[in-house]
């Protein structure tokens, strides 16, 4: 199924942000915005949040339990050996390995979660609305409702008033956010 998108291209961060603000006041649904660098105001306006820190906490918990469990299994259950008179479960000397493996687990699992959620993996080709968004342009993509012409005209006017250097309509297939 094809969808129509209105794409506004800006060359300045301020104009771009005030345009997002006004579009939201006019109740225009913004599909997504594309910027050359992260802008915190945009996250705030579009209510973008990431659950990654919470996920990372649980990855860490998993890492700690799995590592300590493994160390306990090998040193106490499977093949107990006395090293220098220490008890089999010599917990203090397990701490170092546990910390490192936990950090490692969190890193690998967080990267995997990031890759899955953001749909970023080798050879992936995500839709690029405007090729200059990774260089020096700020891009707003707005969904166009075929039944409500006034809304999309409104969007065009807002972006024009805020100093968009270019506004184009594009018909694209199967775009996923």
């Amino acid at each position: 199924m094809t969808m129509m998108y209105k794409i506004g291209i800006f060359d300045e961060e301020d104009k771009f942000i005030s345009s997002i603000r006004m579009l939201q006041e006019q109740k225009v649904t913004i599909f997504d915005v594309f910027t050359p660098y992260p802008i915190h105001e945009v996250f705030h306006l579009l209510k973008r949040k990431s659950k990654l820190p919470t996920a990372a906490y649980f990855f860490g918990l998993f890492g700690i339990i799995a590592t300590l469990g493994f160390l306990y299994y090998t040193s106490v259950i499977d093949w107990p050996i006395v090293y220098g008179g220490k008890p089999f479960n010599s917990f203090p000397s397990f701490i170092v390995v546990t910390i490192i493996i936990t950090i490692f687990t969190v890193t690998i699992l967080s990267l995997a979660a990031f890759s899955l959620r953001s749909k970023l993996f080798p050879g992936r080709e995500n839709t690029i609305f405007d090729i200059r968004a990774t260089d020096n342009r700020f891009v707003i993509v707005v969904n166009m409702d075929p039944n409500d012409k006034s809304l999309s005209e409104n969007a065009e006017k807002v972006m024009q008033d805020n100093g968009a250097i270019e506004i184009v309509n594009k018909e694209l297939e199967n775009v996923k956010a």
Partner: protein
Amino acid sequence: MYNRRIRGPLIEGNKTLGQITADVISPMEASPGLWWFIAFGISSMAALFGLYAIYITVTKGIGTWGVNNSVGWGWEIINFVWWIGIGHAGTAFSIFLLILRQRWRTSINRAAEAMTVLAVMAAAILPALHMGRVWLAFYIFPYPNTRGPLWVNFNSPLFWDFVAITAYLLISASFWYLGTLPDFATIRDKTTSKIKKAVYGFFSLGWTGSSRQWIRFESLSFVLGGIAAVLVVSVHSIVSTDFAVGVEPGWHTTLFPPYFVVGAIFSGFAMVMTLMVIIRKIYRFTDYVTDNHMDAIARILIFISLIMGTAYATEVFVAWYSGNEYEMFTFFHNRITGDYTIQFWGMVICNAIIPQLFWFRKIRRNWVGLLIISLVINLGMWFERFNIVITSLSKDFLPSNWVAYKPTIIDIGVYVGTIGIFACGVLLFIRYIPMMAISELKSVNRIGEKIED
């Protein structure tokens, strides 16, 4: 808030966003110049010499090295600790400064992280060879095996070291790669060459710069930064426990972990400074890596140098204060005086005294001064490791065990080889990967401007 009027802009020359992209990727577009090929040729020769030395070590054995029964750890361990120390800068730079929100890191972190990955790779070669039968190195992995299953000794710092270095290499490499994603996408969208578009497109993993990707990217950077900060402290602490759990005089001290960590960051920052001075000179990146950036690194180096001086004094003081005759002998008759005075005083002068020249503003802002002092620091850090490894082992408790240590040509070859591999890696890095994080530079381009109005 960052105040530009007091501290100066982070990027000079009122750049536009497009200019930043063009400036940073221009060295990758143009032919690298004759100097690059000459440097790469020399580095490859050094790497080949190293490969020859490694070949001899593997086929003939550790007997080709200068190590003997008393001095069981020679140049390979000195150089291993030296490289691992240098490898701490990238993480210290990008992660400590990320968490402390020091925005000036943006011009330097990419190069520092690349250096970290390469230095840790160079370091990892040495303990692997030191195992003797390197083809059995996989025995150190705790995997279910047909030998019992017999597990490794999880109480041993040598095993901790293996875990720490492997994890450190993989984590710093992933952190570094993560940071390059937006920049690879920039090159993919900017280049006209079809091959480059395909290659960088593949490695950019389909990055578009959408707000959804950016928020996840930012939170992932903070998560990885937050936990990897622990690594900076833990990896070199573990290296120090390799020594500190031993009973050798001069090793058996609780000062070692902080002393090693600070020393590691010291040598790492010095190596970053060496590289940045050269890179900004060759590629004229002075608008991005400004005099203020170099000044900031130099100030950190003064501070760390004072800590190093204090640590050296503490060691000597404790040896005297403990009244232990072996400690007294090691510090007063085998380091301050005796056979190894050059290394001891070299260490003190290079690490604790010469960096004090950075108190002078003129030297902090003179590239020749920065280059020379940063090289001197790395020489001093090498002396420090020599002091620790060799002096303690060569004259320990029993005079009948006393042996002098001299490296062989094979030891030297392995060391030169690691330098060659590192240099080749750095040269390939500046040729094929953006030397500065383009997207991060853009985000600090106009920082602090509004306060000025």
